[in-house]
């Protein structure tokens, strides 16, 4: 089996479990004190955590968390970043100057640190987490969109549309966006990998999903305290994150090759 197919299976599993999670008979928050820290066994494939909750069930809820955070953050930052990037490149002048400066400022703060800061100041919780990550995430898309629009807006068909009196919005939708979508899709596929890591990282620090809800990051944090006696508590979510990020990165790589986008 090729690596390509393995990556695809991991991605489908991740998305599928996330979407189907509400319909599965999960007892991810059910505390069973007689099963505390039990090792993987036939009735519970990944064992139980420090409160006797089945780790497999929590892993699936964690998949749901990371999947929806990834989707929301990507959509929000893509839309906002695209809009700002298009605006800057198309209007030029002081708007462009200002946007470039703002982008530079955002890029000067390490992304995860800025997200930590935003999350720290707005307060923990899932929707605040999405907001914090989007506040950081739009910058990359804005920069890419701006560069792409600048390079295609001088093309003949755009100039022709302009000469024919098409509105700016119409030109952007019909003539610019289709041309710049390929690099944006590739960028967002790598962006998703970053968001999965960032979500888990913030939840690891206690700034994301709040107890008792499960996130892979908070599962790792809980597990580090019991590492010596029950390493499965750390290993299960750790391997899950690794596989998903690996699959997304691999998918992004092959997408880039297929769409012929030079980095």
């Amino acid at each position: 089996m090729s690596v390509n197919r393995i990556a695809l299976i991991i991605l489908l599993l991740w998305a599928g479990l996330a979407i189907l999670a509400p319909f599965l008979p999960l007892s991810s928050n059910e505390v069973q004190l007689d099963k505390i820290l039990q090792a993987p066994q036939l009735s519970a494939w990944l064992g139980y955590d420090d409160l006797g909750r089945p780790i497999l069930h929590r892993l699936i809820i964690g998949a749901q968390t990371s999947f929806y955070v990834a989707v929301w953050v990507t959509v929000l930052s893509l839309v906002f970043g695209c809009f700002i990037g298009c605006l800057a490149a198309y209007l030029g002048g002081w708007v462009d100057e200002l946007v470039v400066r703002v982008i530079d400022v955002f890029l000067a703060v390490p992304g995860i640190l800025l997200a930590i800061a935003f999350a720290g100041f707005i307060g923990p919780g899932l929707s605040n987490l999405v907001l914090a990550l989007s506040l950081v995430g739009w910058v990359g898309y804005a920069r890419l969109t701006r560069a792409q629009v600048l390079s295609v807006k001088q093309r003949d068909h755009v100039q022709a549309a302009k000469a024919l009196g098409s509105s700016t919005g119409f030109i952007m939708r019909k003539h610019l966006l289709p041309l710049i979508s390929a690099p944006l899709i590739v960028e967002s596929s790598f962006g998703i990998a970053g968001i999965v890591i960032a979500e888990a990282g913030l939840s690891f620090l206690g700034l994301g999903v709040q107890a008792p809800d499960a996130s892979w990051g908070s599962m790792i944090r809980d597990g580090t305290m019991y590492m010596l006696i029950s390493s499965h508590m750390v290993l299960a979510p750790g391997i899950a994150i690794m596989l998903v990020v690996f699959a997304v990165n691999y998918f992004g790589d092959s997408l880039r090759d297929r769409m012929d986008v030079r980095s």
Partner: protein
Amino acid sequence: MIAAFIVVFGVTCLVFFLIHFIPGDPIEYMLGESGQIADREALRHALGLDQAIHQQLMTFFSRLLEFDFGTSIHSKIDVATLIQLRLPATIQLAVISIIMALMIAFPLGVISAVRKDSHWDRVAMGFSLLGVSIPNFCLGPIFILFFSMWLGWFPVSGNDEMSSIILPAFTLATAMAAILARLIRSSVLEILHEDYVRTARSKGLSEANIILRHVLPNALLPVITVVGIQFGTLLGGAVITEMVFSWPGIGQLTIESIQRRDYPVVQACIIVISVSYVLVNVFTDLLYGFVDPRIRLLKNS
């Protein structure tokens, strides 16, 4: 240089406005329900929150110019002193992990380029893809489990012994090593096709000599660029890695202060980390001219 100043100015503005992101009354949020009214007013005054917004910004900047970051709400210590205490540990960690990353990336990258499409190449590039895919907070605990608890080679956490730095630095180095190895591989592959390499071959130089004298110096430039750019990611990663290993650096200070809602310290930490990132990039720009005479000549002419 001017661009760097504008960026630093912008970052401090951004950090200044962060405190206004707090929903509701920031003072109440920081002191909790139990805060006395007198304490609240004192803190509000100390943070300048009782002034108009443009005055607040002015005070914020004039204090920054004197390296006055205010006092910690939690420990009542001068924030600048706190940072002075914590910053060296982070610098130490960053420097050691960059050195480690280079030491891992160069052999991996060169071997996989020279033996392209061999098993060596595939294994090295597989490791590199794995390296970018494992987040620090995942790898850190796994290293602690394996090297500290099972093998007992290194201390679990803290900074009490010389060998304490090895695991956190290695954790931090993996991602950068992975990116650099891929970069070195592709630039070495490119350089191997250059005319001067063919000339060197036809002169009868040994393959090792060609790599060391002709290929590596030319592969250095993109490496410097990427180390500069990745330094930001490294600092961000350090924040989490320091938490995993209880490394007493500025990253740990940031997170602890966020958890204690000690916002003056958080603001100062973000400014210090971002400014050091900007400084490193100014430094790498200067380093180009030193490493590549072509750029130096271009600038002079």
